[in-house]
């Protein structure tokens, strides 16, 4: 019972369990685990069962089937061993025969050898006897005796031969016998083999039969056992079932009585609850009506809300549509923009590339040109220097020549005056005679020098003439100081740091220098120009102020605006730089770049003119008149010389003629 129940339970469980052949991997793993667990459980159960229930069963089983099996096994083993013995008996018998034969053979060998030895011994004896007789025969003289002896010898020999032949025949017979035996043995062995085969087959068949029988028997016994077990279990089962039936009947009766009791109770309860139910129902009905009203109201509200929501929903939908349209438009726009952007980007990159290339080429050009420019400058400077030198030389040469000429002219003038006119000669003033070399350039004073001068205080004079605009030295100074104070941002901070230990004057001087360089003021002129500009500016401003601030203030306003307003200074400076400095800067830049101080040749002409005009006009006129008079005088003189010459000639002719006459006279006298 126990086992069958357990088995049934196991089967049920197995149906529910995940199978090992399942598709899912997890399920398979789970199935294996469960199987292992079940096995372990079964083992433990078995052990427990062996302890209490199994013992009797096992004992019973051993009594029947197992015993049968063992018995059969033993029988089979015996059968097998018997069969084996039966089969091997033949081999053993053959072996025995073989060993017998061998022992016989050995014995025969021994006998034969003995026999042969005996025979050999006897024949040897006989042979010796014959030999002996040979000597006897030799002794014999008579032929008869000899013949007897010979015949006896022959007999003996024949005897030996006969013996030998006998032995040979015996041996041959033995050989034949052994041959026969061999054949017999062969036959027997063949028979044995046949027998062996027969027995083997027999054995096999019997074994087969017995095995089958055994199997049948064992099966039968097992069947019987099973049957008895079955009947036993069936009986048990029936008995149990009957018991159960009875119990169930009893239980049923009990339950029926209980049921009646409960029915009564139920009836009572029903009546009670029905009353309660009615009361409750009335109450509930009223409540339901109330609630229905409420429901109606809420339904109405709900409907209203629904409508509202629908309307809103419509509106929202439309808006959404619009939004979608706008969105799409915007998207398209974005796409277009994106395209444009991309184009622009590509253009930009292209442009950048181009500009880079251009820049590169231009910078190359620039470097090249600047190099060329520098070269040119160098050349120009060189040529300028050369030209200056040449000019100097030429100048000196020309001057010398001019001076020599003036000297000669003066000398001639003096001679003319002293000899021809008989007048007292006074030399005209000759300033250039002391000078030699090219006209020296008058250098401009730089802005800083001027500033320094102005700052130092009182001017040494001479400058008043320059500042024709009537700029007061003081005002300039104040302006400069103002500049120095206000325009500190133009000075580098480092410089300021360095300047801190210096004197105030020097400080401001260096500051001014920096400021001038920053603004682009270089020469003294510029400084004054600036000062003038400021003044104008101030006046300009003051005009305005004047307009604005009525007459009452008058001079006091002028006094105040003596100094330009610090706030206006920057603007003024800006205007100033815008107006003037730019060009100045350019100009100065140009000259400075060329590195040449342009010679001012305006005075050169005057200089040369002064040299040329050493002789005044009156003197030249005098000289002209003198020239003409002298020319006349010269003509007279030449006429006189001609006449003198003529007279001389005529005198000479006279003398000659006289001579000739004398001659003639002398010769004719002859």
């Amino acid at each position: 019972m126990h086992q069958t129940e357990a088995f049934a339970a196991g089967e049920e469980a197995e149906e529910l369990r995940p199978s090992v052949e399942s598709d899912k991997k997890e399920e398979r793993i789970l199935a294996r685990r469960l199987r292992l667990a079940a096995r372990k459980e079964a083992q433990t159960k078995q052990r427990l069962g062996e302890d209490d229930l199994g013992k009797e069963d096992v004992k019973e089983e051993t009594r029947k089937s197992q015993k049968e099996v063992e018995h059969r096994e033993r029988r089979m083993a015996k059968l097998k061993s018997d069969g084996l013995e039966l089969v091997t008996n033949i081999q053993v018998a053959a072996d025995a025969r073989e060993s017998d034969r061998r022992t016989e053979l050995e014995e025969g060998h021994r006998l034969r050898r003995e026999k042969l030895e005996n025979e050999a011994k006897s024949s040897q004896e006989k042979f010796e006897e014959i030999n002996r007789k040979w000597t006897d025969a030799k002794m014999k003289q008579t032929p008869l005796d000899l013949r007897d002896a010979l015949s006896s010898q022959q007999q003996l020999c024949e005897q030996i031969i006969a013996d030998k032949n006998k032995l040979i025949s015996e041996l041959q017979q033995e050989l034949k016998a052994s041959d026969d035996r061999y054949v017999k043995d062969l036959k027997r062995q063949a028979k044995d083999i046949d027998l062996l085969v027969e027995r083997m087959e027999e054995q096999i068949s019997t074994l087969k039969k017995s095995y089958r029988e055994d199997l049948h028997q064992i099966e039968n016994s097992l069947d019987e056992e099973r049957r008895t077990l079955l009947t036993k279990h069936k009986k048990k089962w029936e008995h149990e079932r009957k018991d159960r039936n009875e119990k169930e009947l009893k239980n049923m009766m009990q339950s029926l009585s209980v049921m009646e009791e409960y029915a009564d109770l139920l009836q009572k309860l029903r009546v009670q609850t029905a009353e309660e139910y009615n009361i409750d129902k009335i109450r509930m009905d009223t409540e339901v009506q109330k609630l229905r009203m409420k429901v109606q109201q809420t339904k109405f509200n709900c409907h209203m809300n629904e409508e509202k929501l629908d309307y809103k929903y419509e509106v929202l939908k439309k808006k959404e549509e619009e939004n979608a349209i706008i969105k799409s438009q915007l998207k398209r726009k974005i796409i277009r923009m994106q395209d444009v952007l991309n184009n622009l980007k590509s253009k930009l990159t292209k442009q950048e590339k181009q500009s880079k290339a251009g820049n590169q080429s231009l910078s190359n050009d620039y470097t090249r040109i600047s190099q060329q420019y520098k070269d040119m400058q160098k050349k120009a400077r060189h040529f300028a220097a050369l030209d200056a030198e040449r000019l100097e030389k030429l100048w000196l040469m020309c001057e010398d020549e001019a001076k020599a000429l003036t000297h000669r002219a003066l000398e001639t003038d003096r001679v003319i005056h002293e000899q021809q006119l008989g007048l007292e000669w006074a030399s005209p003033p000759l300033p250039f005679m002391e000078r030699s070399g090219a006209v020296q350039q008058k250098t401009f004073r730089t802005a800083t020098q001027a500033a320094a001068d102005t700052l130092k205080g009182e001017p040494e004079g001479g400058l008043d003439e320059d500042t024709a605009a009537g700029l007061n030295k003081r005002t300039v100074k104040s302006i400069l100081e103002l500049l120095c104070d206000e325009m500190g941002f133009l000075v580098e901070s480092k410089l300021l740091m360095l300047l801190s230990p210096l004197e105030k004057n020097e400080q401001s001087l260096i500051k001014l220098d920096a400021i001038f360089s920053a603004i682009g003021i270089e020469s003294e002129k510029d400084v004054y120009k600036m000062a003038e500009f400021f003044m104008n500016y101030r006046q300009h401003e003051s005009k305005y102020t004047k307009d604005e601030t009525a007459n009452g203030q008058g001079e006091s306003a002028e006094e105040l605006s003596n100094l330009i307003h610090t706030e206006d200074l920057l603007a003024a400076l800006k205007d100033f730089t815008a107006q003037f400095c730019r060009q100045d800067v350019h100009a100065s830049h140009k000259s400075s770049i060329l590195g040449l101080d342009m010679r001012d040749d305006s005075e050169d002409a005057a200089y040369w003119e002064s040299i040329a005009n050493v002789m005044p006009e009156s003197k030249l006129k005098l000289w002209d008149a003198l020239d003409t008079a002298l020319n006349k005088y010269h003509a007279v003189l030449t006429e006189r010389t001609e006449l003198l010459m003529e007279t001389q000639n005529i005198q000479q002719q006279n003398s000659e003629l006289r001579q000739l006459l004398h001659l003639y006279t002398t010769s004719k006298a002859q």
Partner: protein
Amino acid sequence: MAASNFPEEQKVFSSMSRSQSSQRSGVMNSASDGQKRRSIIAEDHEWSLALVPLLTTLCLQHIIKHFEEKPILHELQPSFKTYVLQRLPASLPLTITANLISDESYWKRCCEARWGLADISTYDNSWKQMFFERHLQSIIELFIPDTTDTKTVLDVLPLCQNYVKQLRVSQLLPPIKEPSRFDEDDGSESASDMGSDGPSMDHFDFRMLLDKLPNLKELSVVYCVKGCGMNFEWNLFEFTFRDCESLAKALNSCKTLQVFRIHRSKVDDEKCCVIVNHLLDHPSLQELDFSHNHISDRGARAIAKLLNRSQLKTLIVCNNQIRGAGAQALAHALAKNNTLTSLNLRLNRIADEGGQALAQALIKNKTLVNLHLGGNNMTEPAAVALSQALVENCALKSLNLCNNRLGADGGKVLEEGMTHNCTLVECDIRLTDVDQDSEYSICQALHANQIKTKHNHDPSAKV
């Protein structure tokens, strides 16, 4: 056939919805059209697409047909491979198939085509092994020295060297003599002939074979001629000294050999010594079988020397001529040995002295399980010694003493010895002149031992 075709064609026409008014013309048309159609629609009703061989099968058949010129096998898919293997003819040359095909069914077909029914169990259940072993075996058995070209053997060797594990040579042919001379030197001069022609009587030389078989484990040799019939000559059964030397050297060169058998080959002491000397310290030899030869004491002494210089487990020297001295030598070796499990001295002549010596050795030995001393001419003293050994020894399980004249007293002594023994399971004392009573009691003791060992085995089996 044409008649049977008509209804079909008519059907075709009706399906084409032509007018059926002029059936005759329709038939005419169908006849004229049928000429064309016949080439397309088969007349055979049983024709179906399923009967058309697949291209793959055609290809495979082509491969099978031209397997000899171009063997394609391992490139095929497994299913096609089996298809090809099932249909390959068994007559293909071995040079192609030997190393290419390992399929058993193919070799089974080869074996059956060549030898008919065969028992595969003696060939490790491998048909391929069986085929090559028997192939090589038949080549060696039909090899005639000086006449057959050694190439026939050497050509086969590379093909079968990987598959041959055991060689059972059941005959070795001697060289053929010139028949004319043979006739002249009939009978009387045969003795002198044998002397002069000795070298020419050499058989197949195993040296060229054994060192080329890397897997050889078993070698059985018989130097005789099978089925000579009426042409019987003694020198057909000659095992010359040179044969012996070459065989011994070959054995020495074959390091994988485990079993060596030489039966019925007239191995005498000298040859035995030569063979055994070459087998000394062999790394793998386990079984040595000199059955049915002419070995006597000297050979036995040599074998005894071998016993302790090898891993021999089985030694069979049945049906030889070993006597007491040889047995004593063997017993001396056995006393020190611890590898030998089976010793067979059936049908020798060791007699009592040998039996006593062996019995004394058994007292010391602890490994020998089977001992066969049947037909050895032993008597009572040997039985006494053996009974003592039975008392002391506890390893021996099977003892065969049949065909020895132990006598009734010997039987009693043995009975006494058996009562103290608990390991011996088999003891054959047939034809030993032992009393029935003592035989019965011995049987009882054996039976008790059998049950004991069974019980000893069963729990172990259960565990």
